[in-house]
């Protein structure tokens, strides 16, 4: 007991009226209260205490003096009032207060667990909803894309030039919509942890070349040139090829997309850093404003600054890349100077290891 607690107790017990009331109550109900209290708190007693109190010998010799038939001597020795006065703060400090605190803690932990479960459930429902909606959207896009494709392929004499422009518009818009849905699906799949990682040995230089080949045509249209600075020490890694391609191609695609219309240079750099493979894609494009840097990897936060606003993108590419990189046990970061260009760098382990 601290000093202040002690003096407070003293004060309470010194009050004549309290003493009088306690005396009355305890004289009449002392034994009953004691036995009730003992029984009530029995579950929190350690075994030795339980064995000590709740055995016939103790009950007869120790508790019987408190009953009305107790002897005069034991009444003096075990005066119920004195005993209760001593017992009350003890019960309060060592049994009741710890019990209240334990209960409060238990309740808090329980509340936190329920809240966590609720959030997890909401997250699951949200992702399930996205997956279901995307399925429905794809189903109906099937006939929009399908029929407009059928019309596109009609001979020109069946459609006038205006009609054929309209059909082309429908077709390309529907395909754009499809790209958005695919990205949404990817993201929801990653976030529900449904992506399976298939580890295989992949050659970094080869994979880089394959991806550059894929984007060559698009890059040529914008006069974008590719440069490579590959670390010879970084050859084979053990990773999921599909995921690696998705991350790397997205960075390449962005680099080309945001290159200036007058052309630019996209540099791919690789470096072996301890047990990680570091891959960078640098462009000489429009760059990113400093205030937009934090938005880059966030869901549904499009960067709207005029120069960067391009119609052909969902804005989810980097979010997906970040999620994928982290799933592989790596990280991704961006550096940029507005108007000068950007560098996106990701690191992934040379050997993928499943998280325990």
């Amino acid at each position, binding site marked *: 007991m601290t000093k202040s607690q002690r003096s407070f107790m003293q004060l309470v017990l010194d009050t004549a009226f309290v003493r009088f009331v306690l005396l009355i109550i305890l004289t009449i109900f002392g034994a009953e209260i004691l036995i009730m209290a003992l029984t009530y708190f029995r579950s929190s007693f350690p075994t030795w205490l339980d064995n000590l109190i709740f055995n016939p010998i103790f009950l007869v010799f120790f508790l019987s003096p408190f009953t009305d038939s107790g002897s005069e001597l034991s009444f003096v020795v075990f005066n119920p009032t004195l005993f209760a006065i001593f017992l009350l703060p003890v019960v309060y400090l060592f049994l009741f207060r710890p019990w209240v605190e334990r209960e409060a803690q238990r309740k808090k932990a329980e509340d936190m667990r329920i809240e966590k479960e609720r959030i997890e459930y909401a997250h699951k429902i949200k992702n399930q909803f996205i*997956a279901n909606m995307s*399925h*429905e959207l*794809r*189903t*109906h*896009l*099937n*006939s*929009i*894309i*399908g*029929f407009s*494709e*059928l019309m596109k392929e009609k001979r020109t004499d069946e459609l006038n030039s205006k009609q054929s422009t309209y059909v082309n518009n429908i077709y390309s818009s*529907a395909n754009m919509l*499809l790209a958005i849905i*695919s990205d949404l*699906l*990817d993201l929801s*799949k990653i976030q529900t942890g*449904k*992506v*399976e990682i298939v580890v295989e040995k992949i050659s970094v230089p080869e994979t880089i070349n394959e991806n550059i080949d894929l984007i060559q045509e698009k890059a040529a249209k914008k006069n974008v040139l590719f440069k490579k600075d590959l670390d010879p020490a970084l050859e084979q890694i053990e990773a999921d090829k*599909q995921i690696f391609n998705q991350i790397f191609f997205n960075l390449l695609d962005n680099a080309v997309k945001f290159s200036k219309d007058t052309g630019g240079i996209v540099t791919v750099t690789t470096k072996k850093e301890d047990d990680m493979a570091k891959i960078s894609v640098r462009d000489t494009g429009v760059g990113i404003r400093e205030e937009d840097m934090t938005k880059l990897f966030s869901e549904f936060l499009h960067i709207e600054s005029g120069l960067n606003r391009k119609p052909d993108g969902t804005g989810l590419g980097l979010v997906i890349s970040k999620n994928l990189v982290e799933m592989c046990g790596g990280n991704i970061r961006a550096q940029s100077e507005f108007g000068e260009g950007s560098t996106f760098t990701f690191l992934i382990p040379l050997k993928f290891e499943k998280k325990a």
Partner: protein
Amino acid sequence: MTKILVVEDIPLNMEFLLEILKLQGFDVDGAKDGEEAIQKAEKGIYDLIIMDIALPGIDGFEAFKIIKSMPSYKIVPVIALTAYAMTGDRERILKAGFDAYASKPLDVPAFLKILEKYKGKV
């Protein structure tokens, strides 16, 4: 002539599929759900089945299993055509025993290439 059964619950998608298949010179028939597909498969003879997965009632997986258990359909190829197009869906569907997989929205040239492959066999 190669006879194809198309199982598809969305009428417009069915119309589109029947249209492109007819243009390719196939003899086509449609079923709007798993139950109808099973009935039609029992009665008629088809050389190829194109099956949607998400169907009301008996879904594509179940209908596939039932049709494949019929003696006359043991070697008939069944192509899954579905809007389940997330990573892993293809593997899941092929693992169920489907002979090929195509996703919606349909990439027509790629799909026709798949059909071409089976046209020779049937």
